[in-house]
């Protein structure tokens, strides 16, 4: 332990130290309901996702042959039905938006500087947009009869 620096004598009392109190700052207050809606959305989408995701997992990974049954034909079979098309698109949107909002929260928590925060979120939103557009296009523009050897009901009537 070393000696503290000069101990002031009477008269010349303690030179003013830099104040040890950190100035308290809160970034500007927000007055919108955005966080409230986000919070509610997480819960509502969560409940729906529970059904959608568990259904998805059951059909794809448990029933039938499990993971080994999944191939192009399996997908084509599912997406030839509007029911599964709707299911998957709904799941895609809810999961992606839910996940995006979740990751946004995490970025807000851990990114230290405002700039980092901003760019991470921009990247997040861009990725989200790509996934949503690409995913929706894939599901809706998918042609289950693209495989000429298809044996699907829908394709037979068409050819």
């Amino acid at each position, binding site marked *: 332990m070393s000696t*503290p620096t000069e*101990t002031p004598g*009477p*008269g010349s*009392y*303690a030179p003013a*130290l830099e*104040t040890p109190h950190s100035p308290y700052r809160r970034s500007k207050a927000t007055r919108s309901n955005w966080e409230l809606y986000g919070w509610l959305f997480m819960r509502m989408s969560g409940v729906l996702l529970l059904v959608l995701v568990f259904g998805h997992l059951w059909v794809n990974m448990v029933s039938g042959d499990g993971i080994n049954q999944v191939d192009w034909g399996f997908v084509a079979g599912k997406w030839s039905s509007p029911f599964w098309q709707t299911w998957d698109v709904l799941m895609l949107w809810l999961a992606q938006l839910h996940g995006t909002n979740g990751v946004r929260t995490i970025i807000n928590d851990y990114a230290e500087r405002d700039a980092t925060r901003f760019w991470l979120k921009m990247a997040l939103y861009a990725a989200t947009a790509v996934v949503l557009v690409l995913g929706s296009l894939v599901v809706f523009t998918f042609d289950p009869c693209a495989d000429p050897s298809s044996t699907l009901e829908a394709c037979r009537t068409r050819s």
Partner: protein
Amino acid sequence: MQTHRYDVVIVGAGGAGMRAALEAGQRARTAVLTKLYPTRSHTGAAQGGMCAALANVEDDNWEWHTFDTVKGGDYLVDQDAAEVMCKEAIDAVLDLEKMGLPFNRTPEGRIDQRRFGGHTRNHGEAAVRRSCFAADRTGHMILQTLYQQCVKHEVEFFNEFYVLDLLLVDAADARTGREIEGLQVERPEGGSGGADGSAGGPVGGVPAGKRVAGVVAYELATGEIHVFQAKSVVFATGGAGKVYKTTSNAHTLTGDGMGIAYRRGLPLEDMEFFQFHPTGLAGLGILLSEAARGEGGILRNADGERFMERYAPTIKDLAPRDIVARSMANEVREGRGAGPNKDYVLLDLTHLEPAHIDAKLPDITEFARTYLGVEPYTEPVPVYPTAHYAMGGVPTNVDAEVLSDNTTVVPGLYAAGEVACVSVHGSNRLGTNSLLDINVFGKRAGIAAAEYANRADWVALPEAPEAETVEMLESIRNRPAGERYSAIRTALQETMDANAQVFRTEGTLKQALSDIDRLKERYSRVSVQDKGKRYNTDLLEAVEVGFLLDLAEVIVLGALERKESRGGHFREDYPHRDDVNFMRHTMVYRERGADGTLVNRLDFKPVVQTRYQPMERKY
């Protein structure tokens, strides 16, 4: 050093300080200096309640309350002050309710009231429900509510600022004026730091005709000295329980305000009267409120006997504290104590419904569980008297103006709360009357201080106002090695517990006095290990021990001189009250004797009696 200027400076942010701040802050530019964050003040520890004759649940009026206060204080109460307090009690409670204090409610939704020791209907007929409460957190709720109001009114706090000196100047010399820049007032000779290491003493006796110029404070965070110039100063620094070892008081209750005033030559009144609360957790001193008995708790000795039936046949366990504490100590002395060492008695709540205990006494039963591992639903709780409340203090009149002798007011200086002695508690404070005291006289002090500030002129600061404080601090800080204040403090507390507690005799008091003398001598060589500036609690604790030593000496001197037994002061060698010789307040002054040394001078002050003549005190 920094200098600040405020109309009103309030020292202390407990109940009294903040109540004053709320009044002063709305009338004048006010600063509150406190060595603790306001919500850490010990008012928050008060549990039981605050009395006022609201008559919400049964017939009651303020005159009965006054009588109980006077009788409880063994007739040493200044009755004019007690009248003021009991009359204004009702508004004090209603004020707090309007500020938002969440009192417990009656089924009709009004403020609920319960019984408390010494509070009776119609001059002692039977116990009355007079205490307003919020579970057993009344003090907590008062402190929080007052702080909330201070936040609302944007009161300026200087947190963790230790006030170490009061700046008084001779009124005759005090050059005042709206324009004081450059004006300096001569400082009288001889006011330098005492050889005993304490702050500078007074100069040649009572500072008759003194005026307040401000205070000197030490900022804990930086070690910087701040001088606050003020037109009026309110002292609200609370009690001094740390002169004793077993105490319900906080570590920080070191009587700074009393000590500062005393060192500046102002008298201290009735310091020999210290209240020992009957039900401290045995061995620890942590308080179990009287509300425990108000709600039906019973004291029993080792044989399970309800011994209070012998000592106070009418109101038994709800007799005033001095009587109950003495009875308990007597049971233990006569060998009927419980426990392995037979050194405590038992507080029995086991006959109460657990739900009732939870609703009315949640916190204190929690203390028993946490600290002693006792389950109050099923087991009696070990208790023993604990040093609780200083009835004495800085003398004031009913307007909270500080007196420099029996009658002279120090213009601009006010005191309220436990630091002050108005004297509404006489020789023994009734439970719930202190929370009342801090609200009534805190408010009065705040108003009076602001009004004074608004009509008075500035008083110029003395030259180098901080010099004595700096010298005291630096002499402790710079002393390379020496006595540890912690050892001195422990020794002081032990001798006070052994010799100046519930039972006192000339012999024990003389022992205490000589111990204190020796400890003071050791204190003159005190040094600290922390030599730094930031958060140097080592240094400030050492300073606090200095105040404790001074106050202990005053307590013992007063007790030696008072050759009678009255209220909280019980002399085994003089076991009776002696109204002929001692129906008077004790005043102790510190003066510089002819040879330049500091001496204590004892004096007396008559008791104000209005309507109640002294009677024997029987319950």
